[in-house]
């Protein structure tokens, strides 16, 4: 005989069972599709991947040959971006963490501005770069403008991460240093930055890996469709891996013919970005194991 209690427990059991199975279905669906997509990408890409693919210039209107100019362009623009963003991000992060009044009005305004800069769509950064670097400063559509605008794009991320890294240092270390007679700048240079160095390095690497994958800003400020030779000049247009993927996969009428080259480029880009991320994660986890 079914009384109220049995009904209650039955309902509860049903609710739990169906709820849990729904959750598992969603989980399995998502991870299977993700793994399938990227497994396929790596399988197809590794078929094309070879040394000559990496080091050759494109031939026959980019239908054949390698992607060397695109790799050079990506590395150079990322390097330029990090040259701008890393020192500036470190200095501003130190200012926010050590010099500013953290309860003051100015600090809250600066934090608001930084989070706002992080939220601005990357294409708007491209627009800003077009107006400022390309036309106002007359740098033209070039590697320099693209590198600088990528630097501005990743600057807020680096600032936030550097500030977090410095804030994670216990206050006792600062007090100890000051009680021994060191002044503020000495404490920062000799104590705080070496102490937080792994996390600061992680911040730089994450910023760089973000700069490497962005397409929209460089689309407006200097990337070009194809080059027969790698260009190392800062005032010349350049080729870049993300833009190469975009052009090949949308502007060619016959997608099947260029598919191998796209798969190869995607694999190179992904390996570059995943490798940087992996370094960051390894630094982070080794740091945690050392502390604990």
């Amino acid at each position, binding site marked *: 005989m079914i009384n109220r209690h049995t009904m209650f427990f039955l309902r509860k059991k049903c609710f739990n069972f169906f*709820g849990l199975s729904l959750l598992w279905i969603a989980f399995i669906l998502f991870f299977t599709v993700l793994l399938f997509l990227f497994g396929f990408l790596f399988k197809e890409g590794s078929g094309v991947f070879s040394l000559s693919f990496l080091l050759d210039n494109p031939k026959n209107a980019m239908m054949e040959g390698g992607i060397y100019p695109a790799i050079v362009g990506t590395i150079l623009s990322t390097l330029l971006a990090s040259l701008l963003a890393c020192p500036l991000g470190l200095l501003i992060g130190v200012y926010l963490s050590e010099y500013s009044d953290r309860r003051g009005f100015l600090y809250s305004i600066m934090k608001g*501005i930084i989070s706002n800069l992080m939220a601005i*769509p990357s294409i708007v950064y491209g*627009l800003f770069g077009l107006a400022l670097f390309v036309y106002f400063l007359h740098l033209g559509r070039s590697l320099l403008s693209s590198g600088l605008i990528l630097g501005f794009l990743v600057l807020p991320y680096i600032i936030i991460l550097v500030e977090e890294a410095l804030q994670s240092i216990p206050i006792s270390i600062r007090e100890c240093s000051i009680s021994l007679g060191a002044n503020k*700048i000495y404490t920062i240079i000799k104590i705080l930055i070496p102490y937080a160095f792994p996390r600061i390095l992680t911040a730089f690497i994450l910023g760089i890996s973000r700069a490497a994958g962005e397409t929209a800003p460089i689309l407006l400020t200097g990337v070009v469709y194809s080059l027969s030779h790698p260009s190392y000049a800062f005032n010349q247009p350049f080729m870049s891996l*993300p833009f190469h*993927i975009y052009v090949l996969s949308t502007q060619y009428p016959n997608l099947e013919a260029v598919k191998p080259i796209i798969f190869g480029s995607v694999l190179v880009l992904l390996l570059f970005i995943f490798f940087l991320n992996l370094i960051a994660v390894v630094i982070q986890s080794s740091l945690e194991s050392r502390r604990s």
Partner: protein
Amino acid sequence: MIKHVIVYFYKIFKKDRATRLEIYDIISQYIFNGFGFLIIFLMSLMVVFLFWNSMQFIFSPYAKDLFLHTLWNPTGDKPVFGILSMLYGTFLLSCITLIFTFPLGLMISILISTYFSRKLQDSLKFFLEIFTSLPSVVMGFLGLIFVAPYLIKMFHFDSVMNIFSTALILTFFLLPSVISMLLEILNSVSPLMKEAAIALGSSKLEVVIRIVIPSTIRGMVMILLFILSRILGETMIILMISGNSLEFPMTLFHSTRTITSTMAIELGEVVNQSLHYHALFALGSILFAISSVFQWLIKHFERKRI
């Protein structure tokens, strides 16, 4: 006179290490303060350049069409600059992506945060962190070769490039970051409340639905806003998959064009300092303003979370 002062200070500087260090300290303080103000300068530079370049369009007679017209025809004999169809396309896209992304992300993160061990959670989080840094152009390419051909086989669409397939790909692009943010929010609930509810006889799932989600409702709203702002700013995926047609999207299975992809397409060949150029800057300013409002709302919800 000035020479004497300089020589005097130089002598102190050479002789006295403590004074030297103090002078370094004062100088470095000014330098760091200067760099702090650089961030305000950068933001104002951005605002000035965007709005100054769009000024000529905003004060032209064409500006009144902006929110009244569905037609975007900047290069015709009688140029018309209306962004209503773009806004409507963005709105449809946001709705569909939100309907896919939010429940799916919530379900997966509930499963991970409630039923998985701490160690497994950490490794899954590490896995998802790697996918959050995925370039959007790669995701767009995947959508182009997988989703579009399969969809055309399954549903017999007229065109492969439509809002629905864009929303599917955007869902997969956004899910890793949404899940890792949701995990943080769900794990921030104090274990005391959960333990009390379990002691009173609720199951794990009931604890999540009755206790954890109601107590983190502000965080959930924050996630919704985050997804919306990401869709608004996303360029490459929409540019590659949505088809970029300028027609008013009647149904979900029509192609559309958003503000971001319009800028990406047309800024390549626009004549410098023409009306079209200034109109595109006006679009950029609108995007800037909307994303600032979203960011302000996200901050608002973040701050009040306890």
